[in-house]
């Protein structure tokens, strides 16, 4: 079952109520339970409506045409949101599970405190992507950025995976905070105490916070990269030789991991 909503001139509250009524109502539970095929929603003419997918818990698919507003998929726990357009700030804020796919760019604080699920951005993201991300009890949140990322990527990160592919999308070099040819902004991984960040550029280029170290990738990392690069290529139908070259697709990445999972243990006098 696929519902179509025209979001034109629809206030966010009305739009989200419509979505909730379609998906979170008792009928949806019945559909979910009976034949396993969950209803999906296509929303057209989205123009800045906030909180789409906020707190939704079922494994529905939501397709968005246009530009959704801030906090897309906040507190979300299950659905798959695909945006044919760009996202704004706070995509996947404190998300628990599910998937957000954005066929464009996204703004600041992408995946803030995300605990699980996956976010794929075809293009670039703004400042403070993946901050406070954490991983717990089998849940590993993943952010894959096709282009570049702004300052403070992975700040205070406590778990999960961030991958920056650095593909030469048309916007990569235009973004002001990247500064020259760097893929990510300053202070990458400041305060990081868990998780991994993979970046496809020369390690010397990357300006990190003092809590992280740059490492070469190993076999385990290659497996991770291969899996998510593959997902990225398939989701966005990208045939870029830099990443689609099978086993070698993980070449040219380096990894950032924290020195310790207790960065501030010696800060205090007892």
């Amino acid at each position, binding site marked *: 079952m696929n519902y179509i909503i025209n979001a034109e001139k629809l206030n966010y509250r009305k739009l989200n109520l419509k979505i909730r009524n379609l998906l979170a109502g008792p009928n949806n539970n019945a559909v979910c339970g009976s034949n396993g095929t969950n209803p999906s929603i296509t929303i057209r003419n989205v123009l800045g409506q906030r909180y789409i997918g906020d707190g939704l818990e079922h494994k529905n698919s939501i397709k968005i045409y246009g530009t959704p507003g801030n906090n897309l998929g*906040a*507190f979300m726990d299950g659905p798959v949101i695909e945006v044919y357009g760009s996202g704004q700030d706070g995509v996947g804020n404190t998300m628990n599970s599910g998937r957000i796919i954005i066929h464009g760019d996204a703004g600041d604080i992408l995946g803030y405190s995300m605990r699980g699920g996956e976010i794929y951005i075809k293009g670039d993201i703004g400042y403070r992507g993946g901050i406070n991300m954490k991983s717990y009890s089998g849940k590993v949140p993943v952010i894959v950025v096709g282009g570049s990322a702004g300052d403070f990527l992975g*700040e205070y990160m*406590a778990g999960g995976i961030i991958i920056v592919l650095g593909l030469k999308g048309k916007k990569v070099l235009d973004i002001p905070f990247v500064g020259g040819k760097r893929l990510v902004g300053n202070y990458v991984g400041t305060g990081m105490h868990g998780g991994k960040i993979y970046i496809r550029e020369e390690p010397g280029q990357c300006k990190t916070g003092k809590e992280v170290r740059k490492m070469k990738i190993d076999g385990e990392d290659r497996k991770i990269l291969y899996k998510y690069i593959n997902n990225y290529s398939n989701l966005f139908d990208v045939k870029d030789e830099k990443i689609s070259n099978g086993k070698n697709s993980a070449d040219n990445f380096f990894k950032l991991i924290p020195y310790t999972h*207790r960065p*501030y243990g010696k800060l205090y006098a007892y």
Partner: protein
Amino acid sequence: MALKLAQSEFEIERDSQKCISCQVCVRQCSNDVHEYDSDEDIIYSDNDKCVGCHRCENLCPTGAIKIKEKEAEFKKNYNWTSSHLRNIYKQADSGGIILTGMGCDKPYPVYWDHILFNAAQVTNPSIDPLREPMEIKTFIGRKPDKLNMEISKDKNGNTKIKLKTKIPPQLELSTPIMFSAMSYGSISFNACMSLAAAASKFGTFYNTGEGGLHEDLYGFVNNTIVQVASGRFGVDKNYLNKAAAVEIKIGQGAKPGIGGHLPGEKVTRDVSRTRMIPKGTDALSPAPHHDIYSIEDLSQLIYALKEATDYKKPVGVKISAVHNVAPIASGIVRAGADFITIDGFRGGTGAAPLVIRDNVGIPIELALASVDRRLREEGIRHKVSIIVAGSIRSSSDVIKAIALGADAAYIGTAALVAMGCHLCQKCYTGKCNWGIATQDPYLTKRLNPEIGTRRLLNLLHSWSLEKKEMLGGAGINAIESLKGSREHLRGIDLSEKELAILGIKHAGEAW
């Protein structure tokens, strides 16, 4: 440099006539102050390790132990006090930030103690709460701008009045006291359990802090306020759904402007499950919410939470009392908060840098008075409930707060004291001998949650009785009638400026 410059603050006196070497003190002290020498059958005590929690003194069966504050052996100096010297020695030793626990203990003015409450004489009768109904129930949440009624007549010609206005979600409190945010991790599970059970039995609320919601406390969810803070620990859809209300934590009175670091040692298996972070890692709450840099951003988080909870629960914002608290509070109301919690600078904490706790923020009395006045002036006071926190020590503090404009008060320290806390201010060490601010199973079992619950219920009961007495004495029969009624307050020993900020007359000034 092998210098031992920091002197102990306490002196342990052991009456050898009374001591029977039963070693209760040895077993009770988590700081290893007492040591039993079996050869000599004598217990030695090390003053340097004593934190002054009085556990051994309380439990000594023969009353042989006395913990005394030690006269400083430093040369007397009103400027360079012994606490300054001790801190400098400690910092020179370690190079670290000095931590402390509980609320500020410096002798700043306590305005509650400079405010006197009124009583009725002759011109209006006082009310005896033992014989007459006395209403101390209150509601936390946004109130509508006006009430629309539908008046109609039924078949028999009787007038029927129906409320047409949709009332925003409210918390119903049987008494205007709630237990303030204390996380599982900063305090023990038994302490959380006691707070939750007491709140539930009494018809009020407790607050999880940023510690997540333990599944064994799901039975009390109707009396649970959950917190969303910058680390978002334990926050998921289930957490938000279960709670009766959601509180966004921006600041805490004891440490305005800074975040929190729960050290990895306290992140036990169970704490890690509740916070949803790996065992043994530091739980770091950054100072700001990085999705909130403005009132507009705050509004977005408020509405993200309202959307996630389908507009069925009040969403509030907790801030610490700082210099510009009144305009900030005005912004918070306009951002859509249903309640504002203001935490004064004497508010407690499990761990805070001493320098912040003792020097940052303003007293809750002044903050409350100025916020209440500002919101009234702007005509938006009804849109929000004000909860005050930050050292509410007695029922009279609650009464005075309500007369100054609060809807309800949060108590944290008072609740811990009811459960046995002796304010030694060492919560951050995790060695609480009273079994409250610790995760050590040997220590946590010292607090029996059933006894904890009973003691908290007793506290709520006695404060409620006292409030009724005070209200009745002033000729008021409902706490709602007292709210913001500053005419019932008079200041004593206060300057013109202080009286003006508090919006009260000086004692001796009549109508």
